[in-house]
């Protein structure tokens, strides 16, 4: 077990390093940084001074090592636009994105697991067909459009919930639905197929033959086994949702990381962009690592790979 965890962690670290090279490369691609910081009115001498002050006259490799060294100490440099440390901006915005991500995940789990179980138990019934229909439409719904539709329906017409803002919990409900809906189909399908597989297995048949009640068989024996891969998938989906927050936070004007990233992209504020890309990628890497380990702990066959 431990060699597997060690190997996977090592790969995850390498991936994280590769991503950090890529996000640093992003900054280099954005053209003459000193001129960008100085703005259109800066004179040649001012640009030169900025170049030296920000260390932009150094070789690229040296700049990268300096940047990476800073990142490892949680220092992502300074924002061009806000003139404050990128880390402060991130710390300020992260709680909103995490709240949104976890709430979306809770909604996705709350919908997909009961629905997947019901679909498997009543295979071929209207419940199963409804679950399939939800899965198929969920995959086809553009999430920004779904978000706008929710705003029109629940915030403007019914006036149940606010359309924007992250000041109160009500502001998170609609965005979490819009973001969570997207993760539902995959988790629902996995729950359904897992349940079908487990229900057909020998130990469930034995449990049934022992005369255990159906409820006890389904919830104590079958669900516990079927739900484990779904939990692993949920971790991965959370990673995707943090990445998808850029769209939903923009639609609902939530002051989170995603909105910060989008605004920084529009302002050419690349230190912030590369920090957010890296942070979201790191979350994803850690979450998939946890999912891999969880799967391997539960299914020894996977460790051999």
């Amino acid at each position, binding site marked *: 077990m431990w060699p597997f965890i060690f190997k996977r962690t090592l790969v995850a670290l390498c991936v994280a390093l590769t991503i950090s090279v890529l996000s640093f490369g992003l900054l280099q691609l954005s053209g003459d940084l000193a001129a960008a910081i100085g703005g259109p009115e800066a004179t040649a001498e001012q640009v030169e001074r900025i170049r030296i002050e920000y260390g932009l006259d150094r070789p690229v490799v040296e700049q990268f090592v300096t940047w990476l060294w800073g990142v490892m100490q949680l220092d992502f440099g300074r924002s061009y636009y806000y003139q404050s440390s990128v880390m402060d901006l991130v710390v300020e915005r992260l709680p909103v994105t995490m709240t949104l991500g976890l709430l979306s995940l809770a909604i996705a789990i709350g919908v997909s697991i009961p629905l997947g179980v019901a679909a498997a138990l009543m295979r071929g019934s209207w419940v199963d067909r409804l679950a399939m229909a939800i899965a198929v439409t969920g*995959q086809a719904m*553009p999430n920004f*459009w779904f978000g706008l539709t929710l705003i029109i329906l629940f915030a403007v017409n019914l006036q149940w919930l606010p359309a924007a803002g992250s000041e109160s919990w009500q502001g998170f409900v609609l965005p979490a639905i819009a973001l969570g809906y*997207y993760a539902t189909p995959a988790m629902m399908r*996995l729950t359904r197929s897992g349940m079908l597989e487990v229900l057909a297995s020998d130990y469930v048949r034995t449990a049934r033959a022992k005369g255990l009640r159906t409820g006890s068989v389904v919830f104590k024996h079958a669900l516990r086994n079927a739900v484990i891969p779904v939990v692993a998938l949920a971790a991965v989906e959370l990673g995707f949702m943090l990445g998808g927050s850029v769209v939903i936070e923009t639609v609902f004007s939530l002051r989170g990381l*995603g909105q910060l990233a*989008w605004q920084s992209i529009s302002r050419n504020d690349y230190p912030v962009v590369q920090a957010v890309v890296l942070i979201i990628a790191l979350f994803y*890497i850690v979450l998939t690592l946890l999912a891999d380990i969880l799967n391997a702990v539960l299914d020894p066959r996977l460790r051999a790979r």
Partner: protein
Amino acid sequence: MNDSLATTPAGAATRPAIGGGGWPRFRRALLAHRGLALGAVIVTLLVLAAVLAPWLAPHDPYLQNTANRMVPPVWHEAGNWEHPLGTDRLGRDYLSRLIYGTRISLFIGLVAALISGVIGSTLGVLAGYFGGRVDAVISYLLTTRLAMPVVLVALAMASLIGGSLITVTLLLGLLLWDRFAVVARSATLQVRDAEYVQAARALGCPLHHILLREVLPNIAAALIVVATLEVANAILLEATLSFLGMGVQPPLPSWGLMIAEGKSYMFFQPWVIAIPGSALFMLVLAINLLGDGLRDISAPGGRNE
């Protein structure tokens, strides 16, 4: 956006389909499988709309008419048959823009899927065929690619290079190859030791012959299914990028851009976002139905979800 297929622990939905059957079998399956038939009909109609746009569109999609702005669709009291779906904020005919928008969505979907298909299938086939170190390197590339938040990276790159039809298509083509690689790899693993491949090796056939003539045709069915789903994925992502202002630029009638342009009017005239949004939803839904249906009929054993 949602790469769950690639990360599903058991690769539940990626069962490679082996075995031909040709057109008669496809026609029979088309008639028997309602989802597939519905998807095929809608996709055919929308492809026809894209091809025949100049003859179908009642007006020039770029012609502005400030005297005729924000005319509601014909089912409203103030609507008229001159503009069946109304006009936008610049007085351009909405139906004509919608019809021409089909071209943009289909172009980006098809070309991006083609590019990512070539990249992903090549990597996947090589990884599956050679295994060992080649597989390790390609799997590492895949893990790294999966850790990058697609929307965020695409947004940042599009803003660096400058958003346009071509940049968006290329970016999506370069980003969306992961599922192709996963499926091509696992399908190749299944056929690499098949007798006909061994025979070709024993006959001393050159490598490109074995890969292109023996392996590729036998994994094509699985790749076509992925291609369908990836076309849908690329269409959704293009709409998202255009909605956020970093994709296709005005005055092109991209559906995502139409939703972005209608956003400030949506509270009083919800149809401005409802019409392009529904079109997008319908197109993506139809392509997904087609893809799911193709998977069902090509996988022996039918629906195995």
